[in-house]
């Protein structure tokens, strides 16, 4: 069987990859996808913890992450449309500079 601790290591690496994406990318849609990766890593960690403790409660939390991810994508895309309408771009740096001016 697979030691669930290894899955926790993978979840940590995935979470940090997503964090790099959130911090480094300038395009709004890439940031959304990086958040998606981070949510997926959190779900993986919950499932791994559920395996470690031999209890199904952790898997329930994965089922609660699913609607959060769906809501994040829906609202994120709506905000993307609004950003595009108001600033004409999805580049977060350009938007930040426009707001400062």
């Amino acid at each position, binding site marked *: 069987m697979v030691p669930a601790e290894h899955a926790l290591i993978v979840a940590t690496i995935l979470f*940090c990859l997503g964090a790099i994406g959130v911090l480094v990318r300038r395009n709004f849609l890439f940031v959304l996808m990086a958040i998606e990766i981070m949510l997926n890593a959190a779900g993986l960690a919950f499932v791994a913890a559920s395996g470690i403790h031999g209890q199904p409660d952790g898997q329930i939390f994965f089922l609660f992450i*699913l609607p959060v991810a769906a809501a994040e994508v829906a609202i994120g895309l*709506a905000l993307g449309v609004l950003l*595009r309408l108001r600033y004409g771009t999805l580049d977060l740096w350009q938007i930040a500079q426009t707001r400062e001016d």
Partner: protein
Amino acid sequence: MEGGLIAFWILAALIVASAGVAVFARSIVNAAYALFFSLFMTAGIYALLHADFLAVTQVVIYVGGILVLLLFGILLTNRSLEELITSSRRPYWVGSAIAGGIMAVLFGILVSTSWPEQSAQQLPATTAPLGVLLLQKYVVAFEFSSLTLLGALIGASYLVRRKERD
């Protein structure tokens, strides 16, 4: 016993590699497909962790629903793809340093925590206990999460509504 571990690490390498592509790719379509691949492989890891119900859920909802929604949104809302393809990145080192710090803290916690040794005890088929838990112990949270999703969807469609007065 060894086969499961080898399959696990192959899957893990594929997941991390495609997540890296999704984060660092220049073209957003490439990134979306890499994300698709990464989420799909995660279902394989769930199957290896004896979470069979979640493996199917991951494929059906995450890959089939959320990611297709994301892909549709990307392809429908962006009229000029050139701008996205040439989208540049911030200087790497600040973000990478912060993420590296997070990673160091998380690995420190991972190493210093003493995990219970009963991991050999495996869960039986998980679908039935999940259903019982979802409708008894966690029923309030379950209903509340569905309300959250409903509110988010209504809010999203309210945000992008067509303004009648303009």
